[in-house]
Protein backbone atom coordinates (compact mmCIF):
# COMPACT_ATOMS: atom_id res chain seq x y z
CA UNK A 1 0.00 0.00 0.00
CA UNK A 2 1.35 3.47 -0.95
CA UNK A 3 2.58 5.73 1.82
CA UNK A 4 0.42 8.83 2.26
CA UNK A 5 1.65 12.11 3.69
CA UNK A 6 -0.19 15.22 4.65
CA UNK A 7 0.71 18.24 2.57
CA UNK A 8 2.32 20.70 4.99
CA UNK A 9 0.65 23.62 3.21
CA UNK A 10 -2.96 22.53 2.61
CA UNK A 11 -3.22 19.42 4.74
CA UNK A 12 -4.51 17.20 1.93
CA UNK A 13 -3.22 13.64 2.09
CA UNK A 14 -1.09 12.86 -0.95
CA UNK A 15 1.05 9.88 -1.95
CA UNK A 16 4.55 10.46 -0.70
CA UNK A 17 6.20 10.11 -4.09
CA UNK A 18 3.75 12.69 -5.51
CA UNK A 19 4.19 15.19 -2.70
CA UNK A 20 6.91 17.17 -4.41
CA UNK A 21 4.90 17.41 -7.61
CA UNK A 22 1.79 18.41 -5.64
CA UNK A 23 3.65 21.23 -3.94
CA UNK A 24 5.05 22.56 -7.20
CA UNK A 25 1.71 22.45 -8.98
CA UNK A 26 -0.77 23.40 -6.31
CA UNK A 27 1.42 25.61 -4.14
CA UNK A 28 3.89 27.13 -6.63
CA UNK A 29 4.73 29.92 -4.25
CA UNK A 30 5.68 27.53 -1.47
CA UNK A 31 9.39 26.81 -1.42
CA UNK A 32 9.69 23.04 -1.58
CA UNK A 33 13.08 23.03 0.10
CA UNK A 34 11.74 25.03 3.01
CA UNK A 35 8.55 23.01 3.38
CA UNK A 36 10.10 19.53 3.20
CA UNK A 37 12.62 18.30 5.73
CA UNK A 38 15.68 16.23 4.78
CA UNK A 39 13.95 13.13 6.09
CA UNK A 40 10.91 13.91 3.93
CA UNK A 41 13.13 14.26 0.88
CA UNK A 42 14.84 10.95 1.64
CA UNK A 43 11.48 9.22 2.08
CA UNK A 44 10.29 10.66 -1.22
CA UNK A 45 13.41 9.38 -2.99
CA UNK A 46 12.87 5.91 -1.55
CA UNK A 47 9.17 5.94 -2.52
CA UNK A 48 10.04 7.03 -6.07
CA UNK A 49 12.58 4.25 -6.38
CA UNK A 50 9.92 1.76 -5.33
CA UNK A 51 7.52 3.19 -7.89
CA UNK A 52 10.20 3.03 -10.56
CA UNK A 53 10.83 -0.59 -9.70
CA UNK A 54 7.27 -1.67 -10.31
CA UNK A 55 7.31 -0.21 -13.80
CA UNK A 56 10.18 -2.52 -14.67
CA UNK A 57 8.60 -5.98 -14.97
CA UNK A 58 11.66 -8.09 -14.56
CA UNK A 59 13.81 -8.49 -11.53
CA UNK A 60 17.03 -9.68 -13.12
CA UNK A 61 18.08 -11.79 -10.22
CA UNK A 62 15.16 -14.17 -10.54
CA UNK A 63 14.42 -13.82 -14.22
CA UNK A 64 17.18 -16.13 -15.36
CA UNK A 65 16.11 -18.75 -12.85
CA UNK A 66 12.52 -18.77 -14.02
CA UNK A 67 13.52 -18.77 -17.67
CA UNK A 68 15.98 -21.60 -17.08
CA UNK A 69 13.34 -23.55 -15.17
CA UNK A 70 10.85 -23.10 -18.00
CA UNK A 71 13.33 -24.11 -20.68
CA UNK A 72 14.53 -27.11 -18.70
CA UNK A 73 10.96 -28.34 -18.28
CA UNK A 74 10.26 -27.85 -21.99
CA UNK A 75 13.43 -29.72 -22.98
CA UNK A 76 12.71 -32.60 -20.59
CA UNK A 77 9.15 -32.88 -21.84
CA UNK A 78 10.20 -32.82 -25.49
CA UNK A 79 12.93 -35.42 -24.93
CA UNK A 80 10.52 -37.72 -23.09
CA UNK A 81 7.91 -37.35 -25.81
CA UNK A 82 10.41 -38.07 -28.56
CA UNK A 83 11.66 -41.09 -26.63
CA UNK A 84 8.21 -42.55 -26.12
CA UNK A 85 6.91 -41.74 -29.57
CA UNK A 86 9.82 -43.49 -31.25
CA UNK A 87 9.41 -46.71 -29.32
CA UNK A 88 8.49 -49.56 -31.65
CA UNK A 89 4.88 -50.52 -31.97
CA UNK A 90 3.78 -53.50 -29.93
CA UNK A 91 4.94 -56.56 -31.79
CA UNK A 92 2.45 -59.31 -32.57
CA UNK A 93 4.52 -62.02 -31.01
CA UNK A 94 4.47 -63.79 -34.37
CA UNK A 95 5.77 -62.38 -37.61
CA UNK A 96 3.05 -63.07 -40.16
CA UNK A 97 4.12 -61.00 -43.11
CA UNK A 98 5.15 -63.28 -45.91
CA UNK A 99 3.34 -66.26 -44.41
CA UNK A 100 0.38 -67.95 -46.06
CA UNK A 101 -2.97 -66.57 -45.00
CA UNK A 102 -4.76 -68.69 -42.43
CA UNK A 103 -7.80 -69.95 -44.27
CA UNK A 104 -11.26 -70.02 -42.77
CA UNK A 105 -14.87 -70.54 -43.75
CA UNK A 106 -17.37 -68.76 -41.54
CA UNK A 107 -20.91 -67.53 -42.12
CA UNK A 108 -21.28 -63.78 -42.29
CA UNK A 109 -23.92 -61.88 -40.35
CA UNK A 110 -26.42 -62.41 -43.18
CA UNK A 111 -25.95 -66.16 -42.98
CA UNK A 112 -23.88 -66.47 -46.15
CA UNK A 113 -20.79 -68.65 -45.83
CA UNK A 114 -17.57 -66.77 -46.45
CA UNK A 115 -14.73 -69.01 -47.68
CA UNK A 116 -11.50 -67.02 -47.68
CA UNK A 117 -9.78 -69.45 -50.02
CA UNK A 118 -12.44 -68.91 -52.66
CA UNK A 119 -11.87 -65.16 -52.58
CA UNK A 120 -8.09 -65.26 -52.87
CA UNK A 121 -6.66 -64.58 -56.32
CA UNK A 122 -8.55 -61.80 -58.05
CA UNK A 123 -7.64 -58.94 -55.75
CA UNK A 124 -6.05 -58.24 -52.36
CA UNK A 125 -8.22 -58.80 -49.31
CA UNK A 126 -8.16 -56.39 -46.37
CA UNK A 127 -9.35 -58.03 -43.16
CA UNK A 128 -10.13 -55.75 -40.22
CA UNK A 129 -10.32 -57.46 -36.85
CA UNK A 130 -12.60 -55.38 -34.68
CA UNK A 131 -15.10 -55.59 -31.86
CA UNK A 132 -18.35 -53.70 -31.45
CA UNK A 133 -17.19 -52.33 -28.11
CA UNK A 134 -14.07 -50.81 -29.63
CA UNK A 135 -14.46 -47.06 -29.93
CA UNK A 136 -11.30 -46.81 -31.99
CA UNK A 137 -13.01 -49.12 -34.50
CA UNK A 138 -15.97 -46.76 -34.64
CA UNK A 139 -13.71 -43.82 -35.26
CA UNK A 140 -11.95 -45.81 -37.99
CA UNK A 141 -15.28 -46.38 -39.76
CA UNK A 142 -15.08 -43.06 -41.60
CA UNK A 143 -11.56 -43.87 -42.75
CA UNK A 144 -12.66 -47.33 -43.89
CA UNK A 145 -15.53 -45.80 -45.86
CA UNK A 146 -13.19 -43.44 -47.64
CA UNK A 147 -10.81 -46.29 -48.37
CA UNK A 148 -13.63 -48.46 -49.70
CA UNK A 149 -14.59 -45.68 -52.06
CA UNK A 150 -10.95 -45.06 -53.02
CA UNK A 151 -10.53 -48.73 -53.92
CA UNK A 152 -13.51 -48.72 -56.25
CA UNK A 153 -16.21 -49.79 -53.81
CA UNK A 154 -14.58 -53.16 -53.46
CA UNK A 155 -13.42 -53.50 -57.06
CA UNK A 156 -9.70 -53.20 -56.36
CA UNK A 157 -9.56 -54.44 -52.75
CA UNK A 158 -12.00 -56.73 -50.98
CA UNK A 159 -12.95 -55.59 -47.48
CA UNK A 160 -13.81 -58.05 -44.71
CA UNK A 161 -14.52 -57.20 -41.07
CA UNK A 162 -14.17 -59.95 -38.46
CA UNK A 163 -15.13 -59.88 -34.82
CA UNK A 164 -13.68 -62.62 -32.64
CA UNK A 165 -14.92 -61.04 -29.44
CA UNK A 166 -16.80 -63.22 -26.97
CA UNK A 167 -18.78 -60.13 -26.01
CA UNK A 168 -20.20 -59.83 -29.51
CA UNK A 169 -22.83 -61.82 -31.37
CA UNK A 170 -24.18 -62.08 -34.88
CA UNK A 171 -26.87 -59.56 -34.05
CA UNK A 172 -24.42 -57.17 -32.39
CA UNK A 173 -22.06 -57.29 -35.36
CA UNK A 174 -24.94 -56.79 -37.78
CA UNK A 175 -26.13 -53.83 -35.75
CA UNK A 176 -22.59 -52.41 -35.76
CA UNK A 177 -22.38 -52.83 -39.52
CA UNK A 178 -25.65 -50.98 -39.97
CA UNK A 179 -24.63 -48.31 -37.46
CA UNK A 180 -21.41 -47.50 -39.32
CA UNK A 181 -23.21 -47.91 -42.63
CA UNK A 182 -20.81 -50.38 -44.18
CA UNK A 183 -21.69 -52.66 -47.08
CA UNK A 184 -18.82 -55.14 -47.11
CA UNK A 185 -18.65 -58.55 -45.47
CA UNK A 186 -19.04 -58.66 -41.70
CA UNK A 187 -18.31 -61.87 -39.78
CA UNK A 188 -18.67 -62.90 -36.17
CA UNK A 189 -16.21 -65.67 -35.36
CA UNK A 190 -18.01 -67.74 -32.74
CA UNK A 191 -14.92 -69.93 -32.23
CA UNK A 192 -13.01 -66.82 -31.07
CA UNK A 193 -9.95 -68.42 -32.59
CA UNK A 194 -9.40 -66.42 -35.74
CA UNK A 195 -8.09 -63.35 -33.95
CA UNK A 196 -5.49 -65.36 -32.09
CA UNK A 197 -4.59 -67.24 -35.29
CA UNK A 198 -3.76 -63.87 -36.79
CA UNK A 199 -1.94 -62.76 -33.62
CA UNK A 200 -4.13 -59.74 -33.01
CA UNK A 201 -3.07 -57.98 -29.81
CA UNK A 202 -6.26 -55.89 -29.84
CA UNK A 203 -8.61 -54.05 -32.11
CA UNK A 204 -8.52 -52.83 -34.73
CA UNK A 205 -5.91 -55.06 -36.35
CA UNK A 206 -5.53 -55.16 -40.11
CA UNK A 207 -4.34 -58.02 -42.30
CA UNK A 208 -3.76 -57.44 -46.00
CA UNK A 209 -3.70 -60.65 -48.03
CA UNK A 210 -2.13 -60.53 -51.47
CA UNK A 211 -3.54 -62.18 -54.58
CA UNK A 212 -1.15 -65.14 -54.12
CA UNK A 213 -2.63 -65.89 -50.71
CA UNK A 214 0.27 -64.59 -48.62
CA UNK A 215 -0.02 -62.05 -45.86
CA UNK A 216 1.48 -58.95 -47.43
CA UNK A 217 0.93 -56.59 -44.53
CA UNK A 218 -0.11 -56.81 -40.87
CA UNK A 219 -0.62 -53.83 -38.60
CA UNK A 220 -2.29 -52.99 -35.36
CA UNK A 221 -4.27 -49.91 -34.26
CA UNK A 222 -5.79 -46.96 -36.08
CA UNK A 223 -4.05 -45.16 -38.90
CA UNK A 224 -5.12 -42.08 -40.76
CA UNK A 225 -6.43 -42.25 -44.31
CA UNK A 226 -3.21 -41.39 -46.07
CA UNK A 227 -1.18 -43.85 -44.02
CA UNK A 228 -3.64 -46.63 -44.83
CA UNK A 229 -3.31 -45.87 -48.55
CA UNK A 230 0.47 -45.82 -48.31
CA UNK A 231 0.35 -49.32 -46.78
CA UNK A 232 -2.27 -50.81 -49.13
CA UNK A 233 -1.39 -49.19 -52.46
CA UNK A 234 1.96 -50.97 -53.02
CA UNK A 235 0.22 -54.31 -52.63
CA UNK A 236 -2.65 -53.33 -54.93
CA UNK A 237 -0.26 -52.06 -57.58
CA UNK A 238 1.85 -55.21 -57.27
Amino acid at each position, binding site marked *: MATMRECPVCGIRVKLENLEGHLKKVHPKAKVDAVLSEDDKTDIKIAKKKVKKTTQ*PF*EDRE*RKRWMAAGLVIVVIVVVIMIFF*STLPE*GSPGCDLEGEDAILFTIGDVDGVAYDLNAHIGSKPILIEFFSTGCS*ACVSMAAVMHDLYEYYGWGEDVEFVAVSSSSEDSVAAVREFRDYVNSNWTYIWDSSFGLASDYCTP*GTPTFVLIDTDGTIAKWWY*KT*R*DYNTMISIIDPVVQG
Partner: protein
Amino acid sequence: MFEFLTKRRIHSEANILLFTVILSILGVFIAGYLVYDHYNPGALFCPEEGLIDCGAVTQGEYNNIFGIPFAHLGLIGMVLTFLFAALRLKHWSRDYTESFFVIVLIFSFLGAILAWYLTYLELFVIGSICIYCFTEFILITVIFGACLYGFIKGE
Protein backbone atom coordinates in the same frame (compact mmCIF):
# COMPACT_ATOMS: atom_id res chain seq x y z
CA MET B 1 -13.67 -9.01 -3.34
CA PHE B 2 -12.44 -8.54 -6.87
CA GLU B 3 -10.15 -5.76 -5.76
CA PHE B 4 -8.48 -8.24 -3.46
CA LEU B 5 -7.78 -10.37 -6.50
CA THR B 6 -6.79 -7.70 -8.99
CA LYS B 7 -4.91 -5.28 -6.75
CA ARG B 8 -2.85 -7.92 -5.03
CA ARG B 9 0.85 -7.51 -5.65
CA ILE B 10 2.06 -10.78 -7.15
CA HIS B 11 5.43 -12.15 -6.12
CA SER B 12 7.82 -12.26 -9.07
CA GLU B 13 4.88 -11.71 -11.40
CA ALA B 14 6.80 -11.03 -14.59
CA ASN B 15 9.12 -13.99 -14.11
CA ILE B 16 6.24 -16.34 -13.49
CA LEU B 17 4.41 -15.03 -16.55
CA LEU B 18 7.52 -15.51 -18.66
CA PHE B 19 7.77 -19.06 -17.32
CA THR B 20 4.08 -19.52 -18.20
CA VAL B 21 4.58 -18.21 -21.73
CA ILE B 22 7.45 -20.64 -22.36
CA LEU B 23 5.48 -23.64 -21.15
CA SER B 24 2.21 -22.64 -22.77
CA ILE B 25 3.85 -22.34 -26.19
CA LEU B 26 4.75 -26.01 -25.99
CA GLY B 27 1.28 -26.73 -24.62
CA VAL B 28 -0.36 -25.04 -27.60
CA PHE B 29 1.62 -27.17 -30.06
CA ILE B 30 0.80 -30.42 -28.27
CA ALA B 31 -2.87 -29.52 -27.91
CA GLY B 32 -2.98 -28.60 -31.58
CA TYR B 33 -1.53 -31.98 -32.45
CA LEU B 34 -4.22 -33.67 -30.35
CA VAL B 35 -6.95 -31.69 -32.10
CA TYR B 36 -5.45 -32.73 -35.45
CA ASP B 37 -5.58 -36.37 -34.31
CA HIS B 38 -9.20 -35.90 -33.30
CA TYR B 39 -10.11 -35.28 -36.93
CA ASN B 40 -7.52 -37.69 -38.34
CA PRO B 41 -7.60 -40.85 -36.19
CA GLY B 42 -4.26 -42.54 -35.93
CA ALA B 43 -2.22 -39.47 -36.71
CA LEU B 44 -0.38 -39.51 -33.38
CA PHE B 45 3.09 -41.01 -33.20
CA CYS B 46 2.44 -43.22 -30.25
CA PRO B 47 3.71 -46.68 -29.31
CA GLU B 48 1.48 -49.26 -27.74
CA GLU B 49 3.73 -50.41 -24.94
CA GLY B 50 2.39 -51.44 -21.58
CA LEU B 51 0.19 -48.67 -20.22
CA ILE B 52 0.65 -46.41 -23.24
CA ASP B 53 -2.15 -46.43 -25.81
CA CYS B 54 -2.96 -43.02 -27.17
CA GLY B 55 -5.79 -44.24 -29.39
CA ALA B 56 -7.68 -45.75 -26.49
CA VAL B 57 -7.74 -42.33 -24.84
CA THR B 58 -8.10 -39.94 -27.78
CA GLN B 59 -10.58 -42.06 -29.76
CA GLY B 60 -12.39 -43.66 -26.88
CA GLU B 61 -15.73 -42.78 -25.33
CA TYR B 62 -14.00 -40.76 -22.59
CA ASN B 63 -12.30 -38.36 -24.98
CA ASN B 64 -14.81 -35.63 -24.22
CA ILE B 65 -16.63 -33.95 -21.36
CA PHE B 66 -20.21 -32.80 -21.84
CA GLY B 67 -19.73 -33.54 -25.52
CA ILE B 68 -16.73 -31.22 -25.91
CA PRO B 69 -13.48 -33.02 -26.78
CA PHE B 70 -10.71 -32.65 -24.21
CA ALA B 71 -8.34 -31.83 -27.06
CA HIS B 72 -10.35 -28.76 -28.03
CA LEU B 73 -10.66 -27.59 -24.44
CA GLY B 74 -6.94 -28.05 -23.96
CA LEU B 75 -6.10 -26.03 -27.04
CA ILE B 76 -8.44 -23.19 -26.13
CA GLY B 77 -7.16 -23.13 -22.56
CA MET B 78 -3.50 -23.14 -23.55
CA VAL B 79 -3.99 -20.45 -26.18
CA LEU B 80 -5.82 -18.20 -23.75
CA THR B 81 -3.23 -18.80 -21.03
CA PHE B 82 -0.47 -17.88 -23.44
CA LEU B 83 -2.32 -14.81 -24.73
CA PHE B 84 -3.11 -13.31 -21.35
CA ALA B 85 0.37 -13.99 -19.99
CA ALA B 86 2.03 -12.53 -23.08
CA LEU B 87 -0.25 -9.49 -23.16
CA ARG B 88 0.45 -8.76 -19.53
CA LEU B 89 4.18 -8.86 -20.18
CA LYS B 90 3.97 -6.79 -23.33
CA HIS B 91 1.68 -4.10 -21.88
CA TRP B 92 2.99 -4.10 -18.37
CA SER B 93 2.32 -0.47 -17.63
CA ARG B 94 -1.27 -0.49 -18.91
CA ASP B 95 -3.95 -0.55 -16.24
CA TYR B 96 -6.18 -2.96 -18.10
CA THR B 97 -3.57 -5.72 -17.87
CA GLU B 98 -3.33 -5.57 -14.09
CA SER B 99 -5.86 -8.35 -13.65
CA PHE B 100 -4.38 -10.60 -16.35
CA PHE B 101 -2.26 -12.58 -13.92
CA VAL B 102 -5.37 -13.55 -12.00
CA ILE B 103 -7.04 -14.54 -15.26
CA VAL B 104 -4.06 -16.74 -16.09
CA LEU B 105 -4.29 -18.23 -12.62
CA ILE B 106 -7.99 -19.00 -13.10
CA PHE B 107 -7.47 -20.52 -16.56
CA SER B 108 -4.62 -22.67 -15.34
CA PHE B 109 -6.72 -23.78 -12.37
CA LEU B 110 -9.60 -24.82 -14.63
CA GLY B 111 -7.18 -26.49 -17.02
CA ALA B 112 -5.52 -28.35 -14.18
CA ILE B 113 -8.88 -29.64 -12.96
CA LEU B 114 -9.75 -30.98 -16.42
CA ALA B 115 -6.28 -32.44 -16.84
CA TRP B 116 -6.40 -34.14 -13.44
CA TYR B 117 -9.83 -35.56 -14.30
CA LEU B 118 -8.61 -36.90 -17.64
CA THR B 119 -5.55 -38.43 -15.98
CA TYR B 120 -7.82 -40.10 -13.44
CA LEU B 121 -9.88 -41.53 -16.31
CA GLU B 122 -6.74 -42.75 -18.05
CA LEU B 123 -5.37 -44.52 -14.99
CA PHE B 124 -8.51 -45.90 -13.38
CA VAL B 125 -11.18 -46.14 -16.07
CA ILE B 126 -9.59 -46.47 -19.50
CA GLY B 127 -6.50 -48.27 -18.26
CA SER B 128 -4.26 -46.62 -20.82
CA ILE B 129 -2.26 -43.41 -20.99
CA CYS B 130 -1.90 -41.01 -23.88
CA ILE B 131 1.60 -39.56 -23.62
CA TYR B 132 0.53 -36.28 -25.21
CA CYS B 133 -2.43 -35.86 -22.86
CA PHE B 134 -0.17 -36.67 -19.93
CA THR B 135 2.33 -34.09 -21.10
CA GLU B 136 -0.41 -31.46 -21.20
CA PHE B 137 -1.35 -32.52 -17.68
CA ILE B 138 2.23 -31.94 -16.50
CA LEU B 139 2.48 -28.57 -18.24
CA ILE B 140 -0.78 -27.12 -16.98
CA THR B 141 -0.16 -28.40 -13.46
CA VAL B 142 3.27 -26.76 -13.38
CA ILE B 143 1.82 -23.50 -14.78
CA PHE B 144 -0.92 -23.50 -12.18
CA GLY B 145 1.55 -24.30 -9.42
CA ALA B 146 3.82 -21.43 -10.42
CA CYS B 147 0.95 -18.94 -10.66
CA LEU B 148 -0.46 -20.07 -7.34
CA TYR B 149 2.96 -19.72 -5.74
CA GLY B 150 3.27 -16.16 -7.01
CA PHE B 151 -0.23 -15.30 -5.87
CA ILE B 152 0.11 -16.74 -2.39
CA LYS B 153 3.54 -15.28 -1.80
CA GLY B 154 2.34 -11.89 -2.94
CA GLU B 155 0.95 -9.19 -0.66
